[in-house]
């Protein structure tokens, strides 16, 4: 008993010191994060990169199983669902026909105009490994990373609409900040009025539009696409449709299916060439204008001038 009392008196101060040291260490980490956030965030990305893929083997089957249970619950409404699907299929067939015709028409028009699509706008497809695990952050982790050439800031889509942007790249994983996250701000434009706005995530399923110049020109149902302002995002990606929230604010119903994010496309985008001077919009002349020859001064210059102008418009 006496011996135990002795250990007891030793144990308590040691425990105090240990606790104090731990608290200091943790507070130090927090302060370091506050002071030098990028470095700690890099460390976080690397840690996530180590930890999450190590249980990738378990993530997929468990998630699939959970989805199956969810699906099983919906079997109760199977009949009604079937009817609905049949009706939708009918509508879809009509749409498919329209889409095929439009596609052909579009291809013909593109051909007529000699439009060349940007060959660098290709994508890498990744599987969603994990989400943020916290109700306050809306982000997912995909299984492509720096080794696949992913870079911070690239846009991410599911099959249909914009989902978010890459923020935090590890070697094998990358984090996608979803449009619904409260840190997400995306420049968008609203069609057909052409109004520019910022889509600001606020942890709700339908993020609001901010900085609209003329809200009266925007109606619920208008389509919202990314505008490419600021050079961060490629322009013209479908984001969703305008809807009026219960609080009267204009919000965007996102086109991407946020309930089921399984495969995401990361669009490879390249930095837009900066335009610093007004003259930079035109392509520079390939050669200095040849000095007019004294014999026939008015045969060659008009032709070259036209060619130059044509090239300038193409580029």
């Amino acid at each position: 008993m006496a011996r135990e009392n002795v250990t007891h008196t030793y144990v308590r101060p040691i425990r105090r010191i240990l606790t104090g040291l731990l608290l200091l260490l943790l507070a130090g980490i927090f302060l370091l994060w506050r002071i030098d956030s990028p470095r700690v965030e890099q460390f976080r990305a690397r840690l996530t990169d180590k930890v999450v893929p190590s249980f990738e083997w378990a993530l997929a089957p468990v998630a699939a199983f959970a989805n199956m249970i969810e699906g099983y619950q919906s079997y109760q409404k199977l009949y009604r669902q079937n009817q609905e699907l049949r009706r939708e299929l009918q509508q879809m067939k009509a749409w498919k026909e329209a889409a095929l015709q439009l596609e052909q028409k579009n291809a013909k028009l593109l051909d007529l105009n000699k439009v060349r699509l940007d060959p660098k706008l290709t994508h890498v497809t990744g599987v969603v490994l994990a989400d943020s695990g916290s109700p306050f952050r809306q982000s997912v982790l995909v299984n492509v990373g720096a080794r696949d050439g992913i870079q911070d800031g690239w846009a991410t889509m599911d099959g249909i609409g914009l989902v978010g942007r890459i923020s935090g790249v590890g070697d094998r994983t990358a984090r996608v900040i979803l449009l619904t996250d409260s840190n997400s701000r995306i420049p968008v434009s609203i069609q057909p009025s052409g109004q520019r706005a910022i889509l600001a995530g606020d942890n709700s399923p339908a993020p609001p539009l901010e900085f609209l110049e003329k809200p009266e020109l925007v109606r619920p149902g208008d389509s919202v696409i990314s505008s490419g302002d600021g050079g961060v995002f490629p322009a013209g990606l479908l984001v969703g449709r305008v809807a009026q929230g219960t609080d009267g604010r204009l919000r965007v119903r996102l086109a991407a299916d946020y309930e089921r994010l399984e495969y995401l496309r990361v669009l490879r985008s390249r930095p837009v060439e900066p335009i610093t001077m007004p003259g930079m919009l035109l392509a520079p002349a390939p050669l200095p204008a040849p000095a007019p020859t004294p014999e026939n001064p008015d045969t060659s210059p008009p032709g070259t001038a036209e060619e130059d102008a044509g090239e300038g418009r193409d580029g």
Partner: protein
Amino acid sequence: MVDFALTRIWLFRLLFAAICGTIIFFQLLPLKTAPGGWPAPDLLQAFTCAWVLRRPDYVPIVLIAAIMLLADMLFLRPPGLQAALMVAAAEFLRQRIHMTRDLPFGVEWALVATVLTGVALGQRLILLLLLVERPPLSLFLMQLLATILAYPLVVFVSRHIFGIRPAARGKVDTLGHRP
């Protein structure tokens, strides 16, 4: 006998780490990627409090710190903040074990609710002072409430599935004070 007791303690420490790992794993599963709805309770906090109040020797302070720091890192929280507060809270609860031992469960529940509220408020206050962006207050309070409501369930699971009961008074001196 001593060896058996030591092995048992280490086994239960491992079990605690495994439970926390499972909780983290399930929170990371991309089951709910759309926002909205009721936030899930922070089961890591609830399990830590429940185990500290029952068998403090099974949850050494270093283990709590390590698990909470890992959770901070993986769940995109400010790293170290919640971990530090939880270490302090666990130490606070550890010193009050003898108070809750003979009292009804309601008292323990109230104590844990107070401590968890303290952790949450402390976290918000520090973030406010250091001008860090804070999660929306309503969601934050909803999660705190969910955690407090989940606490009895966590205690029930700990007691009847993992067999974590407060050690009888006589036993504490042989097991509880082992460093």
